[in-house]
């Protein structure tokens, strides 16, 4: 067999948040990406969500910039309406057969004006809104969709099904409709494949249990998400769908389609439903504080970062009621009145209590669709019994077929941050398999020579956008255009149907050149999504991209003042006048270019640190590991097996051996950082080992400093040798301590030191660890009596199977409450552990030979390190990432990344995934070799600076410093590379010495003067 050429391209199947993140990581690291999505636009389920837990950020707002970036990326090719049919070849060179459905709309011509949809006579179920409302047969998936191109639903279109109608073709001003379009099969060759097809929400229809088919007031959580959303069918007003009445009481039923092997075949926990139910209840209550929200649950699983405090706030601050009972069923009233009946077991009284709810939300779980399962099998990707991709804890995103990787829900049920982490991990892994071909298939823009406008009088061009009917139906766009014509310095005005369409962009470029315009104002939609587009247009026309100002007359006018068109038009005119006044004062800004040192520093030589180092090395980068102990391994040296049963010692030894032998990796053991200077691309650190110091320069830093185990002073720990911590027990397992074989009765107590007032977070790993340990003990002695005393069992995802197995093997789980904790006494021959049984409500006295305390994971709270890199630590002592949802392995500070226990407690597979994700983010930076920073940065006028140092103290990024020598010694200066342009220093400067470029005082005052 001939060795095929390794290709520097990756195909990603599935354009949800995982696929998007992986695509961006790869495309920014030198690989060409095909992003294949089966629907007409990317975004996946995250695009349907109203808010995201636990911060309740608007989902679309945080996602939209990523959508836009993917849509505009030179090295990402979007293949929508497409699915994989088959894969041949091997790692390095796969041939992927794709089936692409006809769109019937020419993507190059469609300007997304919406004229087609408006007149289309066919109404079909709106999938984006979960079928709660209808849309037309020609449609865009959602208003912010990428690509924002219409498509025709071929099964419903009258023209395509019956040869009648054809209205859309008549209405389309761009001639984009093509009824002759056909389905296609494509063959694409790529070096690696990432599967990110996402999940299918459990469908409760066809089952009588929850009355889902019987009443429109019983909705799935995804339907409720759309009801909550301002872009949903009721503009965010939650109503009973049966009569559009205002609800007073809403119930959430957890574990619908999860943890159930009877009414469905989903033994797993879906991991996300507890948190989204809490989120939905809080948001619903924020909409209407008089609403009564009740969540019926089995175990509250708030095991992620910030989740437990969100749960506590839901109870204490928001008054959400939590009832621990999985309810038998939901049914309507015989009289046909609105209101759904729920009977539940009230644990406090032992009686069945009946309540009537206006809306019942079914917290539906995740499953993998039969189509995806079939595809996986067809591709040779093995699945678990639960239908998720089979992976190894030490290689968490590699499928069983070499060169094919997985991220997101197909890897196992998970939330957005975990999907984003895995996306990074998958991107890293795919990239690492193709390093020899990096950069061979990517394209780069050829920069246009920038015209020098120094000394030129401002010549402003104003472009006003109709945005289809979005703006034009409310605001008098020609009126605004004509108004702009009379403003100072304005030389050219125009109005466009869609300013963002490719042809309009070309037209603007031409006009700038012809009219010699040197300042541009676009009055259209949101700069958040469209600033980069227009800036690129300026660049193409040879203008400095900062000579541009955008006015949002859509969100700020037509959308919010749609009933006052006259006032909206006046407001738009005023806003344009302000923008013109400001833009006239703009000067070209320069961006600092910085070369990135190609070395990396990893702090911490545990599993995460080593995995990160290995990942970076695999991409060809040199890494230094700084480890405070004399040996590598961190906490993993004490751990017995993973949840999947792999030996951690074996995996650790392999990793240590890999890292030790790797010529790209330098090890500094028994070492710590004594000094850090510099910033992204150019850090200078001093590593101290006893008396010896080493100076190193590195472009990026990964913090993987880990955490430690809580040392309890309760439950006779340290006083009785039969009382152990979870790690103590693992050490005995590793040592094959014969004493374990003779144990007749073993007890575990959960949440020791976790979920307590002083340490309010859940330590995430202990429930699974205990269940795994219990199973190991059962293996040693099947007749051993084992009791687990717990508060909520949190064996999330497929770990639930272990909990089930433990119960099936006779491990008895007893739930205790914090006001009635277990009591441990030395009973001589045995330990006596007394606990109140949660079902019988009577005390049980357990005689045990072994008591294991599942103790908390405690962060080191390394203030010194935080200070060195200007990175924050949260209240709980863990490092705080840039964004809990979408940047879980990044810091707000550029060039510094985070992984492992230092971020939050997590098991081996998740630690390794995050290490690889951190390495992936670092690779994005390193592979660019240089970075251009923003021109919108602060600058000091030394003549005015008093050198007071306030700016230096206030900057969250360490950008200002005081000059130590030369003419301006003692004055502040801003490092433009570090500055984020937040303006905090500018506002704090008492001398007026600081200005933010692009937002200078004179420019802002000019705007205010023009109101």
């Amino acid at each position: 067999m001939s060795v095929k050429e390794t290709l520097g391209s990756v195909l990603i199947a599935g354009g949800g948040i995982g696929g998007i993140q992986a695509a961006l990581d790869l495309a920014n690291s030198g690989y060409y990406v095909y992003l294949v999505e089966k629907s007409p636009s990317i975004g996946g389920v995250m695009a349907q969500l109203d808010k995201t837990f636990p911060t309740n950020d608007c989902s679309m707002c945080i996602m939209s910039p990523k959508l836009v970036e993917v849509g505009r990326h030179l090295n990402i090719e979007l293949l929508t309406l497409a699915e994989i049919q088959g894969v041949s070849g091997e790692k390095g060179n796969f041939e992927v057969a794709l089936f692409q459905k006809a769109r019937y709309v020419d993507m190059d011509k469609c300007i997304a004006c919406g004229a087609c949809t408006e007149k289309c006579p066919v109404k079909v179920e709106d999938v984006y809104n979960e079928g709660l409302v209808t849309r037309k047969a020609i449609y865009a998936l959602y208003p912010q969709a990428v690509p924002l191109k219409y498509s025709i639903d071929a099964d419903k279109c009258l023209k395509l099904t019956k040869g009648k109608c054809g209205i859309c073709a008549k209405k389309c001003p761009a001639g984009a409709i093509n009824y002759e379009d056909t389905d296609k099969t494509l063959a694409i060759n790529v070096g690696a494949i990432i599967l990110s097809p996402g999940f299918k929400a459990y469908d409760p229809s066809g089952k009588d249990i929850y009355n889902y088919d019987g009443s429109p007031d019983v909705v799935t959580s995804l339907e409720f998400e759309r009801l909550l959303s301002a872009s949903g069918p009721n503009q965010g007003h939650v109503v009973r769908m049966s009569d559009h009445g205002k609800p007073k009481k809403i119930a959430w039923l957890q574990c619908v389609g999860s943890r159930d092997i009877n009414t469905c075949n989903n033994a797993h926990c879906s991991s996300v439903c507890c948190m989204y139910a809490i989120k939905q209840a809080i948001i619903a209550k924020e909409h209407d504080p008089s609403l009564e929200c009740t969540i019926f649950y089995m175990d509250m699983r708030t095991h992620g970062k910030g989740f437990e405090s969100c749960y506590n706030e839901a109870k204490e601050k928001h008054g959400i009621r939590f009832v621990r009972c999985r309810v038998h069923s939901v049914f309507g009233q015989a009289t046909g009145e609105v209101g759904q009946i729920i009977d539940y077991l009230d644990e406090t009284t032992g009686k069945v209590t009946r309540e009537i709810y206006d809306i019942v939300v079914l917290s539906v779980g995740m499953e993998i669709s039969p189509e995806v399962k079939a595809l996986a099998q067809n591709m040779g990707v093995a699945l678990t019994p639960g239908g998720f991709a089979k992976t190894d804890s030490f290689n968490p995103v590699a499928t069983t077929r070499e060169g094919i990787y997985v991220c997101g829900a197909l890897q196992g049920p998970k939330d957005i941050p975990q999907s984003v982490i895995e996306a990074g991990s998958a991107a890293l892994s795919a990239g690492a398999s193709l390093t020899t071909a990096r950069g061979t298939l990517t394209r780069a823009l050829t920069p246009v020579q920038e015209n020098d406008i120094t000394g030129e009088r401002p010549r402003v061009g104003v472009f006003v956008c109709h945005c289809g009917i979005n703006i034009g139906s409310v605001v008098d766009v020609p009126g605004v255009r004509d108004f702009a014509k009379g403003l100072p310095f304005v030389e050219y005005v125009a109005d466009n149907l869609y300013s963002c369409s490719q042809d309009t962009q070309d037209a603007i470029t031409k006009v700038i050149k012809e009219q010699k315009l040197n300042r541009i104002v676009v009055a259209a939609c949101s700069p958040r999504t469209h600033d980069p587009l227009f800036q690129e247009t300026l660049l193409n026309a040879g203008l400095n991209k900062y000579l541009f100002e955008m006015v949002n007359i859509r969100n700020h006018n037509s959308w919010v003042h749609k009933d006052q068109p006259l006032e909206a038009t006046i407001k738009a005119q005023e806003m344009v006048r302000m923008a013109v006044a400001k833009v006239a004062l703009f000067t070209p800004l320069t961006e600092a270019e910085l070369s990135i040192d190609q070395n990396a520093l990893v702090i911490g030589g545990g599993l995460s640190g080593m995995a990160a180092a290995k990942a970076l090395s695999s991409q060809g980068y040199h890494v230094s590991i700084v480890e405070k102990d004399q040996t590598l391994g961190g906490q993993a040296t004490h751990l017995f097996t993973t949840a999947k049963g792999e030996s951690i010692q074996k995996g650790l030894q392999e990793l240590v051996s890999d890292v030790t032998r790797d010529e790209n990796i330098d090890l500094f053991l028994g070492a710590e950082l004594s000094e850090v200077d510099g910033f992204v691309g150019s850090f200078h650190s001093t590593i101290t080992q006893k008396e010896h110091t080493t100076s190193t320069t590195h472009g990026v830093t990964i913090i993987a400093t880990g955490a430690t185990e809580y040392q309890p002073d309760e439950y006779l720990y340290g006083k009785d040798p039969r009382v152990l911590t979870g790690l103590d027990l693992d050490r005995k397992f590793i040592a094959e301590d014969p004493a374990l074989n003779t144990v007749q009765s073993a007890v575990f107590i959960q949440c020791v030191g976790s979920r307590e007032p002083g340490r309010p977070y859940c330590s995430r790993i202990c429930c699974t660890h205990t269940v795994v340990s219990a199973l190991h003990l059962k293996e040693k002695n099947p007749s051993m009596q084992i009791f687990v005393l717990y508060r909520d069992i949190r064996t999330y995802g497929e770990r639930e199977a272990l909990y089930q197995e433990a119960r099936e093997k006779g491990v008895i789980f007893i739930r205790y409450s914090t006001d009635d904790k277990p009591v441990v006494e030395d009973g001589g021959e045995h330990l006596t552990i007394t606990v109140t049984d949660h079902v019988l409500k009577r005390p049980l006295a357990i005689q045990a030979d072994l008591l294991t305390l599942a103790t908390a994971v405690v962060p080191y709270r390394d203030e010194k390190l935080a200070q060195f890199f200007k990175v924050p630590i949260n209240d709980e002592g863990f490092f705080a990432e840039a964004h809990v949802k979408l940047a879980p392995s990044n810091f707000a500070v550029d060039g510094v990344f985070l992984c492992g226990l230092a971020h939050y407690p997590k098991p081996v597979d998740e630690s390794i995934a995050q290490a690889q994700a951190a390495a992936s983010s670092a690779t994005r930076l390193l592979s660019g070799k240089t970075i251009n920073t923003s021109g919108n940065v602060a600058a000091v006028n030394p003549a005015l600076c008093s050198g007071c140092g306030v700016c230096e103290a206030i900057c969250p990024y360490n950008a200002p410093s005081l000059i130590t020598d030369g003419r301006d010694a003692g004055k502040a200066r801003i490092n433009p590379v570090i500055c984020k342009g937040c303006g905090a220093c500018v506002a704090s400067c008492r001398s007026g010495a600081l200005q933010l470029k692009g937002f200078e005082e004179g420019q802002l005052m000019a705007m205010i003067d023009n109101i």
Partner: protein
Amino acid sequence: MTEALEVTGNPSRIRDKALALIPDGNLSACLTCGTCTSGCPATGQMDMDPRKFLRMAVLGMDETIERHPWVWVCTMCKRCYDVCPMSINIPQLIYDLRAEWPREERPKGILGSCDHHIKSCGGAMGVSLEDFKFTIEDLAEECREQPGFKALKADLDRQGAFFALNQNSREPVTEPDEMLPLWKILHTVGADWTYYSKMWGGENYCMFLADDPSWETIIRTQVEHIEKLGCKVFINTECGHSFYAVWQGLQRFNIPHTFEFKSIIEYYAQWIREGKLPVNADWNTHGIKFTVQDPCNLIRKSLGDTMADELRFVVKSVVGEDNFIDMTPNHSMNFCCGGGGGSLQAGFTEERHAYGTVKFNQIMATGADYVITPCHNCHAQVEDIGHHFEATYHTVHLWTLICLSLGSLGENERTYLGPDLAEYGL
């Protein structure tokens, strides 16, 4: 505070036995989630509920549960098993625990009925075959005098009859006139049917007694006899548990047979569709409201929702679509009335009434004047809780209403009709 229960080392005999014998019997798989208990009308009776019961088994509290009388309050309706996320067969555990009771200590009412049945080789009320034969002949004679039924046939052991029909003992013994409506229906459609003489009683208290050998004896004897008669179809009368005893017995005891086993309700529906049973709701001019009880044994435990739909088709055809109000929940999700599982004979009347409150409230919520109960136990329990809680609804079998609609309901066949219909059509 209760004294602490010592749990270590307790042998969980019941748990181990369930694991060994019951498919879906791994009791320790229980999540203690409360699904069973929140849907069980026996919750709280005798301070017990399904979850507690299971918990005691899991914790090895065998002594507490092995003779706990709650096993006779639970009707084994399978509402818990239906949705238990771990699919734990609690009703089978209850059954097996009933079987562990020394036979003579089991409730006398159930025990006596089973023994009578076996001894008489007829039915649970111990009626001799001669008496049954006489009743049939006497009643048939009487019926033939009514207009339109001159040629009516009701016989026993007629070789080669197409249908074999079982008969609950209650009618021939205590209210023979209640037999006539069903005969009239069979006559109207021209059915070729016969009773059979061995174990002719449809009821099966041996099943409630958890006496497998006796349950099997009854079914096997019936089956063998019907096979000898050469009947093509074995029809079960309007009775839930007798249906289940045969339906389940045939599988459980692996009894060979060539006939088809059907519920009479399936035939009511078929005959109405075929026009052989020309019922209509024209008689219900005053909008008398009806609801229907889905017998657990016929619906949830055996034939499922398609049977429930058939039942509604029959009911609506007879009383009128607009006059039918369904209870909620219904079909397979319906609540047991509390009369199943032998509870009517078990002797725990107070608990049975308390159990029945769920059903009673369900009925009252419909506002119906009549409850149609195509099941003898449902009929007796619904009737009884109606009296007990002083409601004014009436409880009727379908056969009464079908004949009322056909205009053939005799004067003496109206025991369960209210005054509003007592005279109608006479």
